[in-house]
């Protein structure tokens, strides 16, 4: 239910918004304005984003450096790293750089239940992280439901799956509507352990209509990875009041930013249709 719980907090946020709308409508509304700030730029920091799934594919590790706030958003790739993945039993897989900062493995499928470790050697320093790929949980089907907020009727997707009883599970849902906008929803089984779960996937997509295509990918996450994503969501104010910002705890050592995420994946693509 964490999802539901998180959603409850979304509602509370909506409630706060409702207060503001009410007070604002009666009086004068709160307002947002884009402003110029003189932000201090830090030294560029190393960022490693490593993904390993149970799909038979070329897994990707992206290595980059942070850029100043005012610069155009871009992936500031870093060349010349040695990237090696180790599985238990001594098996080693070397990644090769295919474009600046992007390192790919040969084609293979990660094995659920395995603890992998990743070693990145770059600019004379070695960074390591480990992540355990959870046992796979299948996304059984998708459904849709109409909900109304503040007079707007919106269609929300539902994900159906069976949560395993013996494990502590964390999930990340990637929702792709009309083949483009990707939304995320993070949840865990703290309150739904072992159940047939109906997960309401709240998104900012308020114009979802019958007949639109919709794809949902459910990823099973390792706990530290979940916590990492949760921290990012918390800072941006998702799932409750915003907290004092700080960098999320990476599973890499030596002060690298980013995360090594060994996850399972289960995907369904469908067309929006109300029952």
């Amino acid at each position, binding site marked *: 239910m964490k999802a539901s719980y998180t959603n409850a907090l979304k509602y509370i946020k909506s409630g*706060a918004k409702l207060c503001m709308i009410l007070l604002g409508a009666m009086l004068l509304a709160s307002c947002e*304005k884009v402003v110029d700030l003189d932000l201090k*730029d830090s030294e560029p920091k190393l960022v490693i*984003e490593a993904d390993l799934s149970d799909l038979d594919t070329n897994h990707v590790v992206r290595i980059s450096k942070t*850029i100043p706030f005012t610069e155009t958003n871009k992936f500031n790739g870093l060349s010349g790293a040695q990237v090696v993945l180790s599985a238990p039993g001594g098996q080693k897989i070397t990644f090769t750089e295919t474009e600046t900062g992007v390192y790919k493995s040969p084609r293979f499928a990660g094995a659920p239940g395995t603890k992998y470790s990743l070693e990145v050697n770059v600019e004379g320093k070695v960074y390591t992280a480990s992540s355990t790929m959870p046992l796979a949980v299948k996304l059984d089907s998708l459904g849709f439901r109409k909900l*109304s*907020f503040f007079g707007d009727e919106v269609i929300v997707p539902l994900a159906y799956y069976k949560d395993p009883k013996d494990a502590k599970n964390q999930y990340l849902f990637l929702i792709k509507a009309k083949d483009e906008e990707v939304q995320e929803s993070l949840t865990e089984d703290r*309150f739904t352990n072992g159940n047939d779960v109906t*997960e309401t996937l709240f998104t900012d997509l308020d114009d979802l209509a019958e007949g639109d295509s919709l794809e949902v990918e459910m990823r099973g996450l390792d706990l530290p990875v979940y916590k990492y994503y949760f921290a990012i969501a918390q800072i941006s104010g998702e799932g409750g009041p915003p907290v004092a910002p700080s*960098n999320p705890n990476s599973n890499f050592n030596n002060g690298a930013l980013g995360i090594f995420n060994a996850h399972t994946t289960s995907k369904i693509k469908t067309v929006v249709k109300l029952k």
Partner: protein
Amino acid sequence: MNQFRKVGVIILAILSFAGYGFAQNNLTISGVVKDSLSGETLIGASIRLKGVKDHGTTTNAYGFYSISVPKGEYKLSASYVGFQSLNRTLSLNKNTRLDISLKADNALAEVVITSERRDLNVSSPQMGLAKLNMAEVENVPVLFGERDIIKTLQLLPGIKSAGEGNSGFYVRGGSIDHNLILLDEAPVYNASHLLGFFSTFNSDAIKDVAVYKGGMPSQYGGRLASVLDIRMNDGNQNDFGVEGGLGLISSRLKVEGPLVKDKSSFIISGRRTYADAFLKLASDTAIRNNVLYFYDLNAKLNYRLNQNNTLYLSGYFGRDELGLNKTFGFDWGNSTATLRWNHIFNNRLFSNTSLIYSNYNYVIQSFIEQSDFKVKSAIQDYNFKQDFQYSLNQHNLRFGLDVIHHTIRPGKITASEASSVNDDKIENRAGLETAIYISDEWKVNDKLNITYGLRGSAFSAFGPGNFKTYDQDGNTIATRTYAGGDIVKTYINPEPRISASYQLRKSSSIKASYTRNTQNLHLMSNSTSTSPTDLYVMNSNNIKPEVADQVALGYFRNFNNDRYEFSAEVYYKGMTNQIEYRSGTDLRGNNNVEGDLLYGDGRAYGLELFLKKRFGKLNGWVGYTLSRTERQFNDINGGSWFPSKQDRTHDVSIVGIYKASKRWTLSSTFVYNTGNAVTFPNGKYQLKGKTVFYYSERNADRLPDYHRLDLAATLEAKPGKKLQSSWSFGIYNLYNRQNTYTMDFRDDPDDATKTQAVRTTLFGIIPSVTWNFKF
């Protein structure tokens, strides 16, 4: 009751052995001071005797006074600002009981904003005390025209608002939960409505407000930074009365009157917002089905058994309700009840016994099919207090016992059979907080006054429950199960308190104080705003009591026949066992919250200047604070000290109230403070194709400075035969300053290749109007 008498006698015996001795040839005059019209007891009224020996005192929280002097002829004067003084001569040849009624002075052509004896601020050893008169609260402009004692307090030096329009406050670098908020002695755990914009205190029901920023008297404890002691009206003893008001946000109604003439009276006061009434006007059913309102109910009943015994029963109940179109419901609120027995043992010994209940809870409900659930959470106190006040020549002793049983229910989840959600419960926690205290206000000589005391506080955490220990990273190492009633851990803390004043000249003094305070309940919030779901935790095997040591030094001076008062105070406060939590911690429904906590230190120091004009057509004050507040945690900011969210270098408030004519009162406030310490990004990177910000130092940046000017005007209607009415007009943020509430960073919605900083402003210029009536 007999036992209490015994305990009292034993304590007195011990005290006399301790060298105080009963001065046999002194006589005592004692009694209760009341408002002649309403019969309300007057708190802090001044009683002075002139004759063989001069002596003075003020009435306590129940209007009681007691003075011991040698036999002889005396001139007694009783005064309370806003009331006509009473003077009489008396020859004291035996212990005397004298109850006094003072007449309200309706002819005053001015607003009077002090109720204290005029020079008490100079002569008393108490430091860091601010009192609020309800006349100030009525006249100072506030947001939406909702009178609010907490927002008026925020205009005093050393007390800072936690945010725009927010009723949370910081005292001398403390957090919101470092304030002990007492309503008729009952602690109020979440003193705000509507997500912080209004305080839970309906000013109609309130008689007296005192806030201690430092030099906390030893009868108070359990919080680090301050005590806000709010006393409710007792209810008119002589006549029935109805009072009320219609405002933009809410309406109020108060009914009071005698039940049994001269013995018993009652007061009931209610308030409800009706913002949601506008929702009902909407044509859209989906909007019409939303709910959003709060209400408050204060009630009090008193019964005077005889001259020496009075019973008081008071209660508060308030709730916020938020519902979204039958998919979601959320409500929260406080309820408190206090039963008190005032007993005058003899003309020197005054006793008050209190039984107190306090509860704060919230309920969240989701009605969404297949994922419905209900979460309940609560914190609940049962409290017994026994307080004695004993006056003995140059000594005023206060001693007693304070026992509180706390229960915290962090969360219980229930769901229907069809729901994906399992029933679950986070373990309850129980604790017993016990304190004994004694203090002595000692008038050493004409110049030197000392108050010294000791509060011994103990806290025990009890089973049943599973208590875990954690490693450095928050992983569970061991779990120990305790049965109900087993003591998990006990903490004992002696808290010495001392303050002294030395009168330099007739109207000036210097004061110094040292106090130690401890805190056993902690609010988990590193969030930037308060929320009704903020979680309290108590001491355990992992969490230790927070401790604060504060030293303060001050200069106090009155000018121009006490018309002006001036004070300058400097303070330094060191705090240990401060609590934050790791980034990414989920406080909700978490059985292992304690594994995610970080412990560190805090320090706060500053200078507070205060100049107040107390009488005249124009009065008001100027307050200025220069201060710094920092925290240090090994795991935050690389272990370096960083400015905490309470840190505001400069803080200015100016309040002016002008009685323009018999009918018009004008007032204005101006506030300025340095922007909050916040963390801005120092870089960015891409993750899952999205922008993530990089932060290097905690709270190294500042929001823009905050300032605002408010105006208010009150027009008293021509007095009718029965009905008296008045209009209050207000303008909040007159020059429409766009103060920054939050600064957010995001990708430009129109150009995803760019990031932008977005400033949110909550309130621009806001007019308000309220109609008040009384008959």
